[in-house]
């Protein structure tokens, strides 16, 4: 049991930090521009595919640098020529635009790279077990993912708290209308933030591609979850996004690890259930079965009872 808990904790943190890489960019964009970017996970997918193509020519490591830069450029272009144009039609149009963009990017990816799973592999140097605990390996690549995620978190935190641009961004998050009055080039800041956010998602894609698979559906699998994190964490709160990422990561791994069903719960109260009733599916419902649903349940509950999110100050 301890082994299970230990590895679940570890896996939960790895997943959580990966999610944070996506969520941090999304929350910045959302807070500053008011756009919930549906296509954010598509940038994550682009990161993985770019890195895959680069890796077939020059190996994994250059891809780790180049792919996010490319994704960031794509993001900046999308902001400059797409989103900014749509902005005049209002927030609903922006949301629908990113929704369409997500659809389009998936189609373009399929057009360029085809529809099957790509054999994008972790680099040779990281293909070993870092340590063995209770007979279970912990792959070095997972540790590498952990390392990258944490360093990005630290760098992001430093930039936001110590640098001038960070202060502008913080100001823009809490008071979106004020920054323009202070004479900053807001469109440029927006484009930059959008590009950097996309690049962060790209990094996540580069390092998650080998571990979670590189295929056209990878954005759809992850996309809505990132939304959930941003909303649950609270608008304009990086800390909220961080906590929510870890929360969702751990929630999902532990829900799988802990094998309890509704039946077990009812047994506690000495209620027996009829195996043939129309509700039989409800009685046999188990925690691992509904694990991927929990984030959405959390989302709906949070929005009903605390629309500002866990750490947010402004309403969504």
């Amino acid at each position, binding site marked *: 049991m301890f082994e299970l808990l230990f590895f679940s904790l570890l896996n939960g943190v790895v997943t959580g930090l990966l999610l944070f890489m996506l969520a941090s960019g999304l929350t910045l964009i959302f807070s500053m521009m008011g756009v919930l970017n549906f296509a954010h996970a598509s940038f994550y997918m682009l990161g993985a595919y770019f890195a895959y193509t680069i890796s077939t020519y020059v190996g994994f490591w250059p891809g780790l640098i180049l792919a996010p830069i490319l994704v960031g450029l794509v993001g900046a272009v999308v902001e400059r020529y797409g989103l900014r144009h749509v902005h005049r039609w209002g927030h609903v149009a922006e949301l629908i635009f990113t929704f369409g963009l997500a659809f389009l990017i998936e*189609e373009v990816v399929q057009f360029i790279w085809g529809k099957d799973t790509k054999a994008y592999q972790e680099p040779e140097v990281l293909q070993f077990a870092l340590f063995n605990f209770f007979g279970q390996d912990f792959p070095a690549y997972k540790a590498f993912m952990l390392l990258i995620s944490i360093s990005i978190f630290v760098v992001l935190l430093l930039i936001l708290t110590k640098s001038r641009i960070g202060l502008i961004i913080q100001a823009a998050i809490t008071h979106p209308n004020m920054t323009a009055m202070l004479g900053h080039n807001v469109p440029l800041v927006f484009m930059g933030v959008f590009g950097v956010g996309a690049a962060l998602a790209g990094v996540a894609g580069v390092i998650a591609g080998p571990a979670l698979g590189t295929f056209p559906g990878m954005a759809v699998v992850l996309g809505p979850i990132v939304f959930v994190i941003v909303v649950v964490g609270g608008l304009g709160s990086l800390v909220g996004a961080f906590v929510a990422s870890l929360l969702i990561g751990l929630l999902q791994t532990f829900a799988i690890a802990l094998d309890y069903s509704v039946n077990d719960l009812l047994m506690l109260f000495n209620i027996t259930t009829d195996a043939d009733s129309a509700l039989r599916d409800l009685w046999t419902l188990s925690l691992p079965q509904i694990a991927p649903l929990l984030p959405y349940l959390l989302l709906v509950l949070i929005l009903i009872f605390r629309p500002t999110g866990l750490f947010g100050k402004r309403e969504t």
Partner: protein
Amino acid sequence: MSNISSAQSAPGSSLFKVFRPWIFLAVLLIILPFIFSSGISVYTMNLMGIFIIFALSYNMLLGQGGMLSFGHAVYFGLGGFMSVHFMNYIEYEIFILPMFLVPIFGGIIGLIFAVIIGSFSTRRAGTVFAMISLGIGELVAASSLIFVAFFGGEEGVSGDRTMGPNVLGFDYATDVEVYYLIAIWAFITIALMYMFSRTPMGRMANAVRDNEERAEFIGYSQRKVRFISFCASGFFAGIAGGLFAINFEIVTEENLNALTSGVVLLMAYIGGVGFFIGPIIGAVVFTLLQTLLSNYTEIWQLYVGVLFVLTVMYAPQGLTGILAMHLPVIRMKRVGPLLMPYLRIGIPTIICLIGLVGLLETVHHVRSMPADQTMMSLAGLEFDTHSVLPWVIMVVFTVVGGFVAKSQAPQFREAWEEAHAPVSSDGGSAK
């Protein structure tokens, strides 16, 4: 919306004038299967009818109520499941009920769920509403795979529409009979939804969409207005689901998943959410794209994606908006002077598009076909994808067409503005 509707609401309009579009619609619905009589076209029209109702019900939220929903398929799907269960009840004679009444039960289940979900989701509009609808959509879609007793798992639930008492000799064994069933329901629901938009409730839905705060200062609770719109929308979506169940005789998880919710958003938006008939046009166009375009090209979804993104960017009023922009020109009989500029910009644009589509198709062909199969046919033309000439032609088409079209753009804009310029203040639909 407001322009068209208020133009029609002008006092003194005779009864015939009011009913003219409806008579036209009824006649059209009756004669369509005689014009398009092949099996597949009747079937496609059935699909259109269902999606017209569904898309219109969606637009009660987005276009008229300002609520962006990413989970509208929930009500469509639940209505479908309830209806297919009713079809089975009829088959096993638990109820004696003519088949054509089944969609009502779909509507009722849609309404019930809309009441439950709307009671908390309509508290706010905007992003909160959108996110709740997304979460609920995911929850319901996933539950449908878990609760097999009701939803039948991924295989869904099947029924048989030919059961139950025959009324007027219809047993719905053929698609044409189903067509008329759907047509009658479509006519009734379109009329009801149109009338809804012209009731105090429908008007206030627009008001809340435009300015939810001000609506509260003229006596209306924005939440209650949204809630009622939401319930009505769920009801009509449920009816569409019921018709789906009758037409396909099977309802599966895909009826209530995120994809269907996305499709209905796409249809409404491409058609134009600002107009009552927008979603109708959107549903027709999208169904045609889906069933026809996919016969000719494997990458049809790419085209749909491009079309959608371009619509959002350049025609936020949708296809109907583009049509409506021409209304004042037609009314003022100024079509003539616009004809030449249209040709001058249209022909190069079409050439550019031909080149682009050709390039995309050829690239796709080269990548997806076996290496020895280099011959491909496109629009009746056979050519070798490994020879240079077709590529050169297509690139030239694209570049030259695009360049000419771009060079024509300023002249076109000038002509367009000229045609519109002296529009007196009362026809400002093209703002």
